[in-house]
């Protein structure tokens, strides 16, 4: 039954998730999806890494979505991530000025992805982080995780999520500083060094 009577709460039940499959290529990725930071912004950081399976093999058909606050810790409410050209219907891409906070990045044939975004500011008691959602063929329900940037040990130590994890698992959520504002963050779906994945309740 897929006509839902909202006057009957018992009939309002979740639509099940399914895998994204291998053929989303014309639909979901978009030009400039990985260029989230406004052009030339001084708080720009580059985050990058691999998505790896249980045998350590990179996934050439995964994508990640990144979602984060601006450097002041404010959550963007700006649209325009996937602007379209009104004449051709093709992608115009971002305007390079406004910060939408959201991007979508496919892994390449080597299983590697990268994005440039603004260094997020802290919100509440959390250390600054980028929220990540991972999709792939073979993954029946997407996975959430977070990228914490290293540097402020006090903030990381006080983070309510990180504080609950043992050292090895905690470290899977903290990107590695490679210098020049570049951070490495691999996503291991299974096995040794498996990334911590989250569920929201």
């Amino acid at each position: 039954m897929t006509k839902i009577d909202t006057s009957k709460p018992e009939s309002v039940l979740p639509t099940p998730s399914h895998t994204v499959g291998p053929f989303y290529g014309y639909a979901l990725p978009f030009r400039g999806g990985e260029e989230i930071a406004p052009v030339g912004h001084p708080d720009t950081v580059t985050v990058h890494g691999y998505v790896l399976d249980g045998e350590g093999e990179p996934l050439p058909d995964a994508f990640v979505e990144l979602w984060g606050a601006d450097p002041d810790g404010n959550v963007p409410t700006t649209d325009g991530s996937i602007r379209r050209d009104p004449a051709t219907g093709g992608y115009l891409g971002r305007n390079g000025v406004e910060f939408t906070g959201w991007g979508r990045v496919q892994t390449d044939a080597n299983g590697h992805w990268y994005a440039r975004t603004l260094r997020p500011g802290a919100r509440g008691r959390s250390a600054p982080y980028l929220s990540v959602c991972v999709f792939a063929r073979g993954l029946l329900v997407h996975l959430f995780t977070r990228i914490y940037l290293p540097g402020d040990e006090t903030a990381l130590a006080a983070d309510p999520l990180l504080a609950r994890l043992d050292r090895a698992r905690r470290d899977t959520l903290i990107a590695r500083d490679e210098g020049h504002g570049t951070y490495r963050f691999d996503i291991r779906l299974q096995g040794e060094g498996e990334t911590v994945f989250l569920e929201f309740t």
Partner: protein
Amino acid sequence: MTLTQHDIDQEIAAEHAAYEKRVADGAPVEHHPRRDYAPYRSSLLRHPKQPLVAIDVSKDPELVELHSPAFGERDLGAIDNDLTRQHTGEPVGERITVSGRLLDRAGKPVRGQLIEIWQANSAGRYAHQREQHDAPLDPNFTGVGRTITDAEGRYHFTTIQPGPYPWRNHLNAWRPAHIHFSMFGTAFTQRLVTQMYFPADPLFPYDPIIQSVTDDAARQRLVATYDHDLSVPEFSMGYHWDIVLDGPNATWLEEGR
């Protein structure tokens, strides 16, 4: 050893029986697939083995995940929700209209949010270079659409009935006809990617992807309803499909669940 449909049928039946037993023993209903659903072979190395770490959002209203990215009019082309008009010629196949509402767990409409779809053409082929099925490509069909929900959470697409297609999970594996859907809610926690199916497809029992939803009632929620009122005279067949996003959102918190 070639993996046959019979082998997969037995695995599907075993997973279904195991789920029914869990529920009979008092376990909660499972609305979503388990990520470690072996009959779908690609899931084997692509699911975490550690339990997910739960975050109770009611303890922290500042979480980034309680907000969602925004999409607006400039993110849409004028005919993005009509997959039959994106080329100079008419695509081949039976025209359909697909419409419904995007709702949250409380039954409230999700307004002004993005829905993206993609699908095979009427012959069961995707316009994707890695696609190996040798059914004909349709130069007048890319199979991609997007829309933004209206004030009542409604969406509307015009497209072509997709064909079923073979894949290589096991020998003689066929996917029932489906349209892939991607949705955003008012919170990033509500993100959903799924597939919509058509009524009474004979392939349902054989397909490990739809069967990965082991709860019979939940699986039915993936199947659209034929709706004669949505059929357009002299033009298209109509299907109705309402979508309910799972996951907590800020409104839910304010109302104290």
